[in-house]
């Protein structure tokens, strides 16, 4: 065997041989028991989804007074109770809702809301106060917490080409995987491989160069693990043929193949509907609802729904009153959706937003989004939520 081939087959495959101690060889880690492995799937709706036209407060006259042309007409609405109902484009979710696999939390926000997209998204992704700037995301800090089940980059996977701030910690970061095969092939391109298997390791120090090589080695190794594991499972359930549908299908593949990943992150954009809202939002909601319904049913079928929790959020809702362009402008509090086979509370979690009691024409938030994060961290992922969120939140009882 040539030296190069020997290195190729040994260094990364068996771990410790040439790699200094600070590069923990994670291949050698025992696979934790796959059964009972809880998954969290975060779905981000980018652009500020209009929550009032998503879960429509049709029982409140103010809604129709303020939205002359963009309101959803009562006969179209999928009614959930006397006040609120779903946008007709979410019809696929009705069945999920009726099964008790869906929970809607109204009026979620934070104090001193910011109406700029990037700032409010930043706040949601870093779980900061609105006057505070953090350079790490809440999931990243979960990875940093060094818990038993979060030692690897693939503990948190974003199904995308690039990684969101939410997924970046100061020591650990999640990994972006749009397509496991593509990632695998990229890391196996000849030159990339050569760099990984050079004749010495004097570059593996704890300086920046060492950090770059360490990241490369981890990527190389994670790509291998993700590709090899995920290809053992074929998704048979039908999914809508949309980009977002494919992303959730990939998440299903990852979950069902038994990948040791705890958090998945997926985004869907196109919600910044200042203009001609009804068609645009309707289209996006349909893409969302159809794919999520397919995903939930798929997981139910494979027996994974009880071990999965799905959360959907957007950086803010929209103003109660529409604008003159048949659209809505940036607002504040919004609804958050949860899906899962074992919800602590199904249906609608709290009161519908109070449209008569506004602040500068905007909804007042009733639930801090970090109470939701705290619940996910503490009750679902079983970690110390306050050290990750840098504050104490009471939490809710949807788990």
């Amino acid at each position, binding site marked *: 065997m040539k030296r190069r081939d020997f290195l190729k087959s040994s260094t990364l495959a068996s771990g410790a041989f040439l790699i200094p101690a600070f590069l923990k060889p994670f291949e050698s880690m025992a696979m934790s028991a796959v059964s009972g492995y809880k998954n969290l799937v975060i779905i981000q709706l980018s652009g500020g989804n209009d929550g009032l036209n998503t879960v429509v407060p049709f029982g409140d006259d103010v809604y129709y007074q303020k939205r002359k042309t963009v309101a959803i007409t009562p006969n179209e609405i999928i009614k959930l109770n006397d006040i609120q109902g779903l946008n007709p484009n979410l019809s696929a979710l009705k069945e999920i809702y009726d099964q008790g696999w869906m929970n809607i939390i109204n009026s979620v926000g934070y104090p001193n809301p910011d109406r700029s997209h990037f700032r*409010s*998204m930043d706040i949601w992704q870093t779980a900061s106060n609105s006057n505070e700037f953090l350079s790490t995301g809440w999931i990243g800090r979960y990875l940093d917490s060094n818990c038993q089940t979060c030692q690897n980059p693939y503990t948190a996977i974003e199904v995308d080409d690039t990684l969101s701030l939410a997924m970046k910690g100061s020591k650990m970061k999640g990994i972006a995987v749009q397509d496991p095969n593509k990632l695998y092939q990229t890391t196996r391109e000849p030159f990339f491989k050569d760099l990984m298997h050079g004749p010495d390791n004097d570059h593996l120090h704890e300086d920046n160069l060492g950090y770059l090589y360490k990241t490369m080695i981890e990527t190389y190794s994670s790509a291998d693990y993700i590709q090899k594991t995920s290809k053992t499972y074929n998704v048979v359930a039908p999914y809508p043929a949309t980009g977002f549908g494919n992303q959730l299908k990939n998440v299903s593949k990852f979950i069902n193949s038994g990948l040791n990943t705890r958090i998945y992150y997926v985004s869907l954009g196109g919600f910044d509907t200042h203009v001609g809202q009804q068609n645009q939002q309707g289209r996006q909601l349909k893409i969302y609802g159809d794919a999520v319904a397919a995903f939930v049913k798929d997981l139910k079928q494979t027996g994974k729904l009880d071990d999965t929790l799905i959360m959907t959020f957007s950086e803010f809702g929209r103003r109660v009153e529409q604008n003159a362009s048949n659209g809505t402008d940036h607002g504040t509090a919004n609804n958050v959706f949860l899906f899962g086979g074992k919800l602590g509370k199904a249906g609608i979690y709290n009161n519908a937003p109070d449209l008569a009691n506004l602040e500068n024409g905007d909804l007042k938030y009733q639930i801090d989004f970090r109470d939701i994060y705290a619940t996910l961290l503490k009750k679902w992922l079983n970690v110390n939520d306050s050290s990750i969120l840098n504050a104490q939140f009471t939490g809710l009882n949807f788990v």
Partner: protein
Amino acid sequence: MDNLKQVKHLYARAGFGADFAQLHNQRNWSAKKTLKKLFKESEEVQPLAAITENLDLRQLRKDAAEGERKAIQELRNQQERALNAAWMKQMSTTNAQLREKMTLFWHNHFACNIGNYYFQQQLNNVQRMHALGNFKTLLIAVSQSAAMLNFLNNQQNSKAHPNENFARELMELFTLGRGNYTEQDVKESARAFTGWAHNGKSGEFVFKAGNHDDLPKTFMGQTGNFNGENIIDIILANKQTAKYISTKLYRYFVNETPDETHVNQMADVFYKAGYELKPVLEFVFTANWFYEDKNVGNLIKSPVELLVDITRRFHVSYDNPDVLLQFQRTLGQVLFRPPNVAGWPGGRNWIDSSSLMYRIKIPSTILNAGIIDFAGKATPEDEAYLASQRKQQFNVIKRVQANADWNKFLEGIPLKAQREQVAAYLLEPPLNARIVAEVNKAADIKTMVIQLVSTPEYQLC
């Protein structure tokens, strides 16, 4: 360290890297002499002039119809692309390297993210104009720019309804740093800045006396009938400001981990010079510690620095410069779109498994005019444009369509140059055995060069 290495290090940090020929010609120059040249070349101030229309004026009508709004979104997007491309081009071709490098520093220090590109361009030009001048002059000009007045809500800061946003960020991020002022200082100084506004049309600063609170304020232990300039004077009289700016300059030019002694030396120079920037920069770039091994080849290039580096070094021209914007999105740094007023965190924050792979792939993709099979996420601010155009994401440019001037690049390499010399020119960290092995294995010089710009080492400067 020999002269050549010093000159190369200086160009890598005070600029965007030296040309091979230039490096060769200046190989016996002292750092002082090289620095003098860098300052000389940066005397010229070339403002950006890509944006000629203030689109906000079109939007003044609140009842703008659907089609009109959509058209404005499209124009706004065009302006963003034009402004981004103009600055990328300027950084990639200018001789005023140090000025552009400092403009990039101020772009991140005085981070501003608003959708008005006419005002964004003004602010960028203000930062360029004073990039190497006096910090107080710069600070006042930035604070009175339409972009910053809008971004930090000082337009809404009035006697009757004080808005503290500007006053808070002024102290937290622009001058003193967190923990060096009280909430009361924020409240009192916000009152001093009431009445600072712009005219909306040209973005010119106006002082609205009627909105200004001229009652006494107590700020940092002093009481008086302070206006905004008075507050800035008090903040600058506090040496902590010199230290805070010096720390940021140190992290930008020297090392991500500040050395207390060196930073204090810088703050002394800066403060004594009345916040003139040239003396403190000269001090850094001529200090022995600047050239110590631990401060060479250890900074992670920002995505913009990486793209400018490759474009400059290989004299690349882009048929469709939008591809650079797509790369910025992929790598997580879009000019004029910092994530928040604190700017991009930088350093290792640039690196994750996917961004690193793209960083390793992009240089060769540009040099080979190759195929792109990845796209960055739209920034949150792009969603309005995408929604108005009925899109879910940006169209992905699939081919780079760039022309690297290989002849010019290769001409710059002296005939007798050894392969390892070429490698040492391209990479800032010292060559190790692994790189040397790759260098000697490559089929030809061009292959070798493409391989070298595809290494983790090339990510550093």
